[in-house]
């Protein structure tokens, strides 16, 4: 099986599709990991078979209808053919070979992609689905974050998918396809990223009110950048400066500590996302708002207004409270 050769055919399809307009940052036609590349190889193999069958059936149908359309001048009934065993056996048996051509790489990739990780330096990430955001833990590296997952290029990544609420589905089209986060189970995705950059992901299983707003990003770094990122995430939040102290007081006063953790402070709750380095993320509220002061204010002021049903309540804070909280959170880089 040579997936690379088969996937050479994909561009052809994509050119046609790309003509239909614009960028498609979540397109499954673009593969940037070993896993998605191999998936696409099978996809394109099936695609060409189905395209062939499509032309055969639709072409045949149109041809037959045009050729045998009644002219109204017939004097006798057509020959009453009841069937033809040979023909019928042919189209019963032939498809078996097509199906085998699809089934063999399918089954082999199923087993390959679900095998245990053997690589020593594989990076392990626990991804937890929440209503409606994602928590990421790097148990071996001692980092917890939310909605933005960093991984090093070219290294095997094992994502362990879990949920303690409803079923979610973890989908990053260009890196790891999808798997469900099923309460009471641990599912796995294993992949090696092949391109640097930011990739979009989104929950793909209906999970309640704000299912549509449950997004996330995966950032593929060079191994050096990844190490830097880990180091910065591991460090506790800056608490010395006077502004930081005042900010944290506001945080405590508004009741945020009941749900959020900020490493290095007394805030240690795990109901909402870890905010230790919330300022370093590009997006907030699971990929739906850009991370800036305006949006932070908007969010803190009325979370359910931004995200229907949000588990972070509207705490009826004054504008000053909101402003100082937003300013404080911005400093948590």
């Amino acid at each position, binding site marked *: 099986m040579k997936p690379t050769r088969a996937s050479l055919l994909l561009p052809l399809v994509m050119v046609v*599709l790309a003509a*239909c*307009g*614009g*960028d*498609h*940052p*979540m*397109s*499954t*036609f673009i593969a940037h990991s070993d896993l998605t590349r*191999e*998936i696409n190889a099978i*996809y394109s193999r*099936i695609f060409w078979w*189905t395209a062939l*069958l*499509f032309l055969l*059936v*639709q072409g045949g*149908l149109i041809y*037959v*209808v045009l050729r*045998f359309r*009644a002219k109204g001048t017939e004097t006798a009934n*057509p*020959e*009453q*053919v*009841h*069937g033809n065993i040979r*023909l*019928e056996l042919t*189209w019963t048996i032939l*498809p078996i070979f097509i*199906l085998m051509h*699809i*089934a063999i790489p*399918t089954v082999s990739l*199923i*087993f390959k*992609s679900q095998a245990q990780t053997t690589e020593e330096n594989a990076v392990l990430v626990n991804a937890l689905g929440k209503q409606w955001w994602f928590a990421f833990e790097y148990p071996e590296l001692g980092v917890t974050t939310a909605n933005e997952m960093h991984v090093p290029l070219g290294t095997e990544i094992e994502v362990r*998918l879990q949920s303690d*609420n409803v*079923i979610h589905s973890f989908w990053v*089209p260009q890196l790891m*396809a*999808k798997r469900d986060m*099923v*309460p009471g189970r641990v*599912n796995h995705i294993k992949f090696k990223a092949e391109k640097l950059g930011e990739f*979009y992901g989104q929950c*793909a*299983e*209906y*999970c*309640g009110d704000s*299912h*549509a707003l449950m997004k996330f990003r995966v950032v593929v770094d060079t191994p050096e950048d990844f190490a830097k990122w880990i180091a910065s995430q591991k460090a506790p939040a800056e608490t010395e400066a006077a502004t930081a102290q005042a900010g944290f007081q506001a945080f405590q006063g508004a009741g945020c500590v009941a749900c959020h953790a900020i490493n290095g402070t007394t805030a240690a709750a795990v109901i909402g996302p870890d905010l230790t380095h919330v300022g370093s993320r590009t997006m907030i509220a699971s990929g*739906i708002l850009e991370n800036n002061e305006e949006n932070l204010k908007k969010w803190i002021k009325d979370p359910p207004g931004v995200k229907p049903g949000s588990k972070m309540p509207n705490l009826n804070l004054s504008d000053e409270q909101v402003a100082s909280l937003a300013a404080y959170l911005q400093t948590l880089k």
Partner: protein
Amino acid sequence: MATPAAVPHTHEAGHSASPSGLWSWLTTVDHKRIGILYGLSALAFFVLGGVEGLIIRSQLSVPNNDLVSAPFYNALFTMHGTTMIFLGVMPLSAAFFNYMIPLQIGARDVVFPRLNAFSYWLFLFGAFVLNVPFLIQPFTAGLDPSSTLAPLIRVIPDGGWFGYATLTGKEFSPYLSIDFWVAGLQILGIASMAAGFNFIVTIFNMRAPGMTMLRMPVFTWMTLVVQFLVVLSFPCITVALILLLMDRLFGTHFYIPSAGGDPLLWQHLFWLFGHPEVYILILPAMGIVSEVLPVFSRKPLFGAPFVIFSGITIGLLGFGVWAHHMFTTGLGAAADAAFSVTTMLIAIPTGVKIFNWIFTLWGGQIRLTTSMLFALGFVGMFTMGGLSGIMHSSPPVDLQQQDSYFVVAHFHYVLFGGAIFGLFSGIYYWFPKMSGRFLDETWGKIIFALVLGGFNLTFFPMHFVGAWGMPRRIYTYDEGMGWDQVNLLETIGAFTLAFGVLLFLISFFRSMRNGAKAGANPWDAATLEWITTSPPAVHNFDKTPMVYSDRPVWEKSHGPGPGYSLPEGEEHIHLPPPSIKPLIGAVGVGMFLTSFVALNLSILALGMTALGLALIFYSFYTWFLEPGH
């Protein structure tokens, strides 16, 4: 009940005048009237489900739209799916089962006419339970969340038509919305199973003399397969729903992992029903197309036994593929591989059917009536759905397509391009038999063009937008994903499609009153329903025919065999008397099941449950004592 109602009887034939008035419809046990009731109800719900679909499409026409709220959108797609499947396609198929099966097999009615009426009324009650929340919620949405009536704040079902645990559990759905859904489906399930047994026994026992199994029309065959699927698969969802109800009402934890339950148990039970359900929806249409294509090419069905056996094989294999709906849930490599292979196998009998249909046309004299156009459309569109199905039969590929718009495209090609095109074909084909008039053919062709064009404009682009990463069941999406234009296009398509359906409804009701008159056998068709008058008399046939061929009516006029013959002498006809008991029984069962789910809410529910039970006992007791003749 023990006496089959349509057996020729020594009583005087005195029932042939057709009674009229509301009461006669409420008490009818005539399979044709019940068929009409099913058909009209199905059309009404088809319109309702269609409106839901249009609101969905309007919401998605542009990014970040706020036409509807997130929770209401979620309720809409839940009800759109539930309605189209259980209240649109299934009852429209049931309309044809009811009206046509006794006629096609040369019988005077189904074997249990009162049970048949019971099925219909129960279906209507279930449909009511599912939809009445739309009328309740506007008044209860504003209730105080801390009051005892808080569960009423959301009553429109909103857990998805697939109702996945744990989202449907009390913890995440504390409202009555899920309970209404459970009650409605439970009621519909009983109605379907009762009808299933009725038709199995009818088809096995009530066929005219000489009609061996292989002389049965293909539509009757497919109906038989469907009824077996119904009686074997509905118990799975019945059990699944009972477990869910226990979790919700009594605090059991069949689906709750924190207490040792398993949310995947629901998925297994649900899809063990849900996959055969797909064939329950599509096989009737396949049966219709297998009648229509031969008639309008003036040839027999090519390889009829192959087509029939393929139908049976599809039905059987349909029970061995359920987990292909669960490739993303992490069943393990062995299970993924096994279910992938069984799923691919289904392509074989399906492909057989498609090629046999095309070769039925080969060498024929094809008349492009509207019915024929829809049948041809069925073959083309269903093939599309089948081919995209092969793509996600491969689990790795499915890991990209599952729960994306690609899958939405796939199953609309199967269920709209397939099932509904087939049913439209059936409507145009049998309307003359049912009403004695033709549907307008000029309108018909315009309607077909609009429906075909609108359908493809709506659903073909969904393949792309799905492959470009758009998930299903999202009430909104951001710009910049490359999804915008395509979604707008789809919405335009949906309204085109809806316009076609609107024209159809107008044409339908106009032709009912002033369509051109049709004779007994206007299409020169082959099966027994065409020997009786259009519309048929209450007793269907003056004399029960003796059948010599699988195309009795065709052979009678075109040879080579005699086709069928009518016996000498007068036949004494006996028909079952009308009865109100099935309606009362259905109300009882419906009331019992509906109030049962609200037991926790109010003492009133307990009273209603008791009243429902009382009605059940009363109606069944008197029903059994009622003379069958």
